[in-house]
C-alpha cells in the first residue's frame, strides 16, 4: 500500500509520454490531397501508370513496390526525343531539363506510397526514376495529356 501512490504517479508519467509520442506521429502522417488521384507503381525496373490523362491538377499516388529504392520525376518533353543524358551515359541530366520538370519525389524506400501533385497541361510527359542506372534500366514511361 505504501508504494501504491508513487507507482501510480510513475505509470501516469509513462503513459503520458507514450501518448504524446503517438500524437506526434499521427500528426506527421496527415497529408493533403487534391484533384484526381492517379495510381503510379514503381518496381525494379519499371513504372506503371495510365498512358493518358486529362489536364488539370492531378495527384500521383506513387507506390514503390521495390525491392530497390526509387525516385520519381515528371518532365514535360517536346516531340518525343529522348531525355538528355549526363556524360556518364547512364543518368538523365536533370539540370538541362529543370525548366521542364514539373515535380519530383526524392528516393523512397520500398513499400512506401507517396503523393506527388502536378498541374498538367496538354502535352507529352515522361515519368522516370533517375537513380544510378534506373532510367536506362527501363524505368521511364510516356504520358500524354489532352
Amino acid at each position, binding site marked *: 500500500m505504501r508504494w501504491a501512490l508513487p507507482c501510480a504517479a510513475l505509470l501516469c508519467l509513462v503513459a503520458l509520454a507514450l501518448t504524446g509520442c503517438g500524437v506526434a506521429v499521427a500528426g506527421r502522417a496527415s497529408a493533403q490531397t487534391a484533384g484526381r488521384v492517379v495510381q503510379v507503381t514503381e518496381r525494379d525496373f519499371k513504372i506503371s501508370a495510365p498512358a493518358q490523362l486529362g489536364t488539370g491538377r492531378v495527384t500521383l499516388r506513387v507506390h514503390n513496390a521495390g*525491392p530497390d529504392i526509387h525516385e520519381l520525376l515528371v518532365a514535360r518533353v517536346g516531340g518525343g526525343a529522348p531525355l538528355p543524358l549526363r556524360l556518364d551515359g547512364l543518368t538523365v541530366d536533370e539540370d538541362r531539363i529543370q525548366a521542364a520538370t514539373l515535380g519530383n519525389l526524392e528516393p523512397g524506400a520500398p513499400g512506401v506510397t507517396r503523393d506527388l501533385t502536378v498541374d498538367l497541361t496538354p502535352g507529352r510527359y515522361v515519368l522516370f526514376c533517375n537513380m544510378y542506372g534506373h532510367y536506362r*534500366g527501363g524505368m521511364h514511361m510516356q504520358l500524354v495529356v489532352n
Partner: protein
Amino acid sequence: MQLTPAFRPFAARGRRTVIAILATLAAVSGGSVLLSTRATARSQHRAAMVEVAARQRTLAERYVNEVLLARSGAQADPGYTASILEQSARVLLAGGEAPEVNGDDDEADVTATTDPAVRGMLMQQQRLVHDLAATGHAILTHGSVMSVPLTADEQPPERNPVDRLRVLAALTGNVALNASRTIATNTDHNVTRLITLQVTVGALGLLISLLLAWALVAATRRQTAHFRSLVTSSTDLVMVFRGGKCRYASQSVVHMLGRPERELLADGFSALLHADDRALAASMQTSGEPQQAVLRVLNRFDEWRHLDAHVTDLREDRHIRGLVINARDVTERVRLEDELTRQAFHDGLTGLANRALFRDRLDQALARSVRSQEMLSVLLVDLDGFKQVNDTLGHDVGDQLLQGVARRFDEVVRPADTLARLGGDEFALLLDGAGETQAEAVARRLIESVSRPLVIGDRELTVKASVGVVMHLGGHGESEELIRHADIAMYAAKDSGGGAFRIFRTAMAQEFGQMLELEHELRDAIENGELKLHYQPEIDLTTRRVVGVEALVRWESPRRGLVSPGDFIPLAEATGLIMPLGELVLRDACRQTAEWRREGVAAEPFVTWVNLSGRQLSAGGVSEVVRRALDDAGLPASFLGLEVTETAIVPDGAAGERARAELQELHEQGVRIAIDDFGTGFSSLGQLRRFPIDVIKVDRSFVQGIEHDARDAAITANLVTLAHALGLVAIAEGIESGGQLASVRELGCDLAQGFLFARPVPAEELGQVLADGDFSALIDAPPTVAGI
C-alpha cells in the same frame, strides 16, 4: 491473524528501502550497459556490412573495366572480380565472412540482416550481380549478349553489349549502395532509439530512486516525529546530560514541574534539587551511578516533588553521547507510602506514636545505651476513671477525652521524647538520656496536666493519671522488661489511689508477681468451686430472733488454705473478676435461702444479705443478674437484701443515675437495700434520700470503740438517730463483746451482728447455730465477757 506492530524499528525498514534504491539503480545501470554492449556489437556488424555492400559498387565498376580491358587484350582478371562480387552478394544475404579483395580489405564478419527491405535489396543485388557476371562472360567469350537471360526485371537498351554491361553494373552498384545506406540509416535509428531508451530508462531509474528516497525520508521523518511525540507527550521527564550539564529536557517538565524546559538546561535542574539530593544527582549526571534514585525537585509553586529517576548510560551512543535520565513524578506514591508508614506507626485516634513505633524507638534507645551507657526512662501512664467515662458517656466521649489527654501530655513533653498511646487509656513516654530526677519531674507534669478538667462537648470531665516510672541506667536492656516494670510501677501508683506516680523498685516486681499468681488462682477457684459462702446471723435486738444472715464469701485454696476476702476481693475488683464472682455469690445465696425456706430454717421476715461491689453496680445490668438469680432459685424478692457501700452509690452522672435506677427497680420488686460500712464514706444526706434504702449498717470501726471512745459512741448514736429519722433500720456490725452489745442496744440499734452471737458458718451448719444459739441470754447478760 498476525497483527503488525504499529511501530516497526526504523533500522529494518530503512535498510530495505536503501536496498531497493540501490537495486533499482543497479538494474537500470546493468540494463543500460547490456543494451549498449549489444548495440555496439550489432553496430560493428552493420558497419562491416555497409562496407561490404558499398564495396560492391566499386567492384561492379572494376568488373566492367576489367571486362573491357580483357576484351581489348590487356592483362585483367574479370573472373576473379566476378567471383568476389558473387561471394560478397551471398555473404551479405546469408551472413559469414566476406572475402578480401587483393589484400586491400581486412576480413569482415557479416551477420545476416532480418530487415525485409534490406533483404529485398540484397536479393535484387544478388540477381543483378548474376546478370552482370553472365553478361560480362558473354562479352568475353564473344557470345550473344542479348541471349543472356536477365533475372532482375531490368530492361536495358539492347543495341550495345557494353552499354548493357554498364547499365547492369550501375544497377548493381546502386542497389548495393542503397542497401548499405539503408543499413546505415537503420543503424542510426537504432542508435537514436538506444539513446532514447537509455535516457528513458535512466530517467525512470532516477525517478524510482527519488521516489524511494522520498519514501525513505518521509518514513524517517515520520519515525522521528513518532519518537519526538513519544518523548514529548510522555508524562515522564527525559533529560540528557553531557559533561554534567543538562543539554535536553523534554516538554513534560512543563506539566510536571510547571517550569519551561529551558529552566532545566545547563545547571538549572541541579539548582532545583533538594540540597540533600544534590550530591547523589551530580553523581548520576556525571557517572551514571547510582542508576536509580528518588530526587526531590522544587516545582513552580515551591513544593517538593519526588521524582523517581533512572539513568541510562548512552555516552557510547554516537547519537546521544550523554547520560539519559528518565524521571517520573512519584510524589503521590511517596506521600501515600509516608502516610501508610505513619499509619502503621501512629495511633489513628490521637496521632501519637503507636505501640510498634514506641517499641522500635525504645529498642533503638536501648541499643544506643549499650554503647553510650546513657540512662533512659520509660513512663507508663494509665487514666483512672476512664473506663467509667467510656461505659457511661459512650465511646465518642471516651475518644474525645483520650484526644484531649493526648494533647495535654504532648504539651508537657519535649519534642525529642517519644510519647505514644499503647492502647485503651494507656500512654507511654520514652525519655532518652533522662535520670530519675528528670523522670520524676516529667511524671509530675503529666499528672498535673490532666488535673484541670477537660471540656468535652458541654461537659467538664476530670480524670486522674497514674504513672509508673522505670529507669534504665545504661547498658544492656530489654524493652519488653522495661515496659513490664513500668506497668508494675504504674499498677502500684493506681493501687495507692491513683493520680500519683511510682518509681519501679525490684520489690514491686515480686509483689506484683505474687499478685498475678493470686489472680490466676482466683480465676481457677471461681471455676473449680473453691469459693464457698458462709453465713453470719443478724439478730433482732428487740425480738431476740435471727432475722437474717449476711452471706460472706470464703476461699479455701488447696495451696494457700483459707484466703481472707480482704486479700482477694480488691484483686477481684481490680481485675474484673468481681463480676463472675459477684454473680456466683448471688446465685449461691439465693439457692441456699430458697432451700432454708423450704426446710423451714428461714421463715419470714428473713433476709439473706449479699454484698454488691461498686464495680458491679457501675457496670450496669445488676438488676437483671439479681432477677435471674431469684427466678432460678424460686426465691421471693423479699428474702434477698443487697449491701452496697457508700462509695459505690456516690458517683455522680449517668453511672450513678443508672445504679440508682436499678436499685430502685429491685427495691420496688421487694429486694432490700442496705448501706454497708455507713459513716466511713462521704455520702451526703441528700444522696441518701434519693436512694431506696431500708437498712443502714454502722461500720464495725465505730462499734469497736463504742465502749471506750466517746466520739465513736456519739457518731454511732447519731447514725442510729439519722437512720430512724429516715425511717430506716440500723444494724451494728462486728459485735464481739457483751459491752459492745449493751452499748449498741442502749444507743437504739435495731439489729446486731458479730462473733458474739455467731461466726460466719457454712450453710449446712446454720441450722445448728440457730437451734443452739441462746441469743436472749446473751442480750440480757451483763457486759462482762468478750467472746470470739
